[in-house]
Structures are given as C-alpha cells and as structure tokens.
C-alpha cells in the first residue's frame, strides 16, 4: 500500500522561526498536497504540486511556501511562523486526478 510519511508527529516552534515540514511518498505519485486541518473548518488546501518543481497555490497560501525538488518529497515552509499557524498539517499524494488521496499521519504544529 502507498505510504506517505511526514517527518514529525508533533512540533513546537516559537513565533518568527522558520519551520520546515517534510513529506515523502513511496508510490511515484505525480501529485502531492499540503492541507491544514482545524476544528470546524475541515481541511483547507495550502499548496499542491503536480510535478517536480511545479506548484500551485491553494486556498490559503499566505505565509507558506513549498519546495518539490524530487518527485517523492514535498516540503512545506513557514518563513516566519505565527501563532495563527498553529494547526494540524496533512500531506497527501495521488496519482491521476480521479484517484484517491493517500494521507500522512499529520504534523501537529504549535507556534508559541
């Protein structure tokens, strides 16, 4: 089965720090996604990538950037973390547009 691995399960950072969230998938999927999950708001798309070095903004890209240098790895970067970025961050990957998403276990980020 597809495995999507997120590097950290829990992360605590201070306001203003630069934060890197890493995600690796092992099924040669073209598409990778970063969502954040907040109670009562569901999942909101931050960025996605449909190929190496290709990216598209999602619905809430402000304060975030991404990097996809290799097909299997998709990184989310918080340039200067703020308290309103405290959230659960979910990475997902997918083959074609009609295929199902495979999610990682998530990274619970707390920004103090």
């Amino acid at each position, binding site marked *: 089965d597809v495995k999507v691995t997120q590097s950290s399960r829990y992360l605590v950072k201070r306001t203003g720090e630069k934060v890197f969230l890493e995600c690796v998938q092992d099924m040669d999927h073209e598409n990778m*996604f970063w969502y954040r999950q907040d109670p*009562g*708001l*569901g*999942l909101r*798309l931050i960025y*996605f990538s449909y190929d190496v070095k290709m990216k598209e903004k999602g619905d809430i890209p402000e304060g975030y950037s991404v990097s996809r240098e290799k097909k299997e790895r998709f990184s989310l970067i918080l340039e200067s973390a703020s308290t309103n970025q405290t959230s659960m961050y*979910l990475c997902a990957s997918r083959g074609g*547009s009609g295929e199902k*998403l495979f999610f990682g276990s998530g990274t619970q980020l707390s920004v103090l």
Partner: protein
Amino acid sequence: AQSVSQHNHHVILSEAASLELGCNYSYGGTVNLFWYVQYPGQHLQLLLKYFSGDPLVKGIKGFEAEFIKSKFSFNLRKPSVQWSDTAEYFCAVNAPQAGRRALTFGSGTRLQVQP
C-alpha cells in the same frame, strides 16, 4: 470559488440507527465527489467516490452515497450504524476539467455512535 457545505457538524446516534450526512457543493460543472473518514487517532481514508454513471455508489463498511445533480448534493448513508463508525466524515469535490485538480473539503461531520 468552489465550496463544499456539510450542515451537520456533530451527530449523535445509537447503534443500529440509520445515518444520513448531508453534503452540498457549489460548482455547476462536471465534478468528482468523495467521502473520506477519519477514525480517532488515524489518518484520513477514502470511503467512496463518484465520477460518473450510477448516481448511487457503494463504498466500504456498508456506506453508500447518492449523487443528485439537480440538488448539487452527495449525501452519505448507512442503514444501521455501529459503535466502530464513530469518526469524523468529510465530503470533498474536485473539478479537473475546469482546472480544479485538488480536492476541496467540507468542514466535516463528527459522528458519535453510542452503544
């Protein structure tokens, strides 16, 4: 912009009760529709999906959903819930032909099944 509405935020049922969770989406073109489930402490997984054809789709664990195009709805149903169905359920939509390849998710419905 495309949006997905799940009007039931928290549903509490007794075992063996029937379930229907509402989902409405705003996009008028061709869409793909999904229901995902997140069991406590687990990652999200696909319950079922609709692309075309029979508007009544069956998924895993006895769940089904009906696509009603005229109502822009894709409601999830199960005739008899079990305690193990306690989870959060998310409806999701994408529209690849219109350039929206990524899924838009609803806000989720938390289902609590009491034994």
